[in-house]
């Protein structure tokens, strides 16, 4: 079973939910489809949705909510 990486296309602050009062887009262990949003990156006060980009199972997040990320950093892994 191989693992695939989902990388942040942008530097910024990573958010797992669209606001603090709602559940995260994806919980650890969820399956994802390529078009699914897995989080938001805040870049200079604007928010960009991050799509999974790949289909997979059992997503594992490697970055916590509200943590800074660099462009190209792996934010999550999925199993194929």
């Amino acid at each position, binding site marked *: 079973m191989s693992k695939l990486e989902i990388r942040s296309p*942008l*530097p*910024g*602050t990573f958010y797992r939910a669209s606001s603090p*009062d709602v559940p995260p887009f994806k919980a650890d262990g969820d399956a994802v489809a390529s078009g699914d949003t897995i989080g938001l990156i*805040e*870049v*200079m*006060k*604007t928010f960009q949705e991050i799509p999974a980009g790949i289909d997979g199972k059992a997503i594992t997040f490697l970055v916590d909510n*509200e943590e*800074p990320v660099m462009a190209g950093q792996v934010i999550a892994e999925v199993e194929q």
Partner: protein
Amino acid sequence: MTIRSVLVANRGEIAVRVIRAAKALGMRTVQVHSAADADMLAVKLADEAVNIGPPAPKKSYLNIEAVIAAAKATGVDAVHPGYGFLSENGDFADAVVNAGLIFIGPSGDAIRLLGDKVAARKVAAKAGVPTVPGSDGRLDDLDAAKKVVEKTGFPVMIKAAAGGGGRGIRIVNSIAELENQFPQASAEAAAAFGDGGLYMEKVITKARHVEVQILGDGENFVHCFERECSLQRRRQKVWEEAPSFLLPADVREKLCASAVALAREVKYRGAGTVEYLYDEDAQEFYFIEVNTRIQVEHPVTEMITGIDLVQEMIKVCGGATLSVKQDDIKVHGHAIECRINAEDPAKGFMPAPGLVTTLKVPEGEGIRFDTMLYEGYTVPPFYDSLLGKLIVWAETRDACLARLKTALEGLVVEGVPTTIPLHLALATDDHVRRGDFHTRFLEPWLESDFATAGDKKAEVA
């Protein structure tokens, strides 16, 4: 007490501006910074720097305990809050004073009073400053809102009492919309600001944003004339001028006098700005709000009056009497400021941080560039996109526009996209030249004139 040392509780270009002002006054300077800002220009310029926490603003620049601890540890006399972050937080001002230090700004009580939009409207009315027709204060319920509309007519704005900076505003055009939106607006305000209080104002459809710079030492109060800031995108100012050149002289006199009356009403100390909407057809102005801090666009006022506003606010908060009297303050020439943001105007103003590989700054008479940039600096993604402000002065507005165009052509920032192309287009636009604009001019202009100009350029290339 004379201030001998100051801590700057901010970042970016305004931190640089405050450090330079404090140094010019012979003060020792301490710059706080987040872990992401260790390389910023203000840190390099300051005598001392203190890391106060992780990149996220609420863990560093908005962390009152961390800022106060840094001030105590470095033994400074005073704290300058800049703009944004904690600058209009009354509790922060109190915390600075309770630590035995001077807060460079008005008292915590004055900040809270003027920061509550409903209370500020009442203060303005008491000082004889005209306010936009609307509710006299907080609206108890929908019925109260309906009574106000009978008086003002539509459209009206529903605003959150605890909102500000363009947030928490809804526009409604009919009774049906009002009935629908009022409860939603109240619930949203409660969620966003912890206060569901609402008030209402008539929408002035074609208005200019005009604001008056005030200075006070607690006993003496002056104005430094007005600025025109109507060119806005998403309620954020893009381009500012001083003076508001089409304002009739008698209106200017009344407008500026009303701002001084308001400053006197609250015994204002420091630099502040009273913001107004100006209805050009009716020649009426209406109070919007007071900003109890230095503003981004303060340099245009400095350029036409010769007053260093940042030095002046530091001096009066240290206990000095205002160094200028009203009769000494004169307008000379015209100034324009362009906000240079790390945004791509050709791609919907998408912001982009990154490494600045080249920086060329124009020089010459009447040209000033207030910036956080240097070659080799990496603009971090965690804060706003303002890189710097190009400010140009000349004897007349036409000469100022011509000089601005040359200065913009000489300003080179490579490595990140910037809004320089937008400002070049504005500097040569006929509407802008005639002063034929209002607060809702820029967004449609970007969709039409600016978009078309971009297409033509692409065809030629």
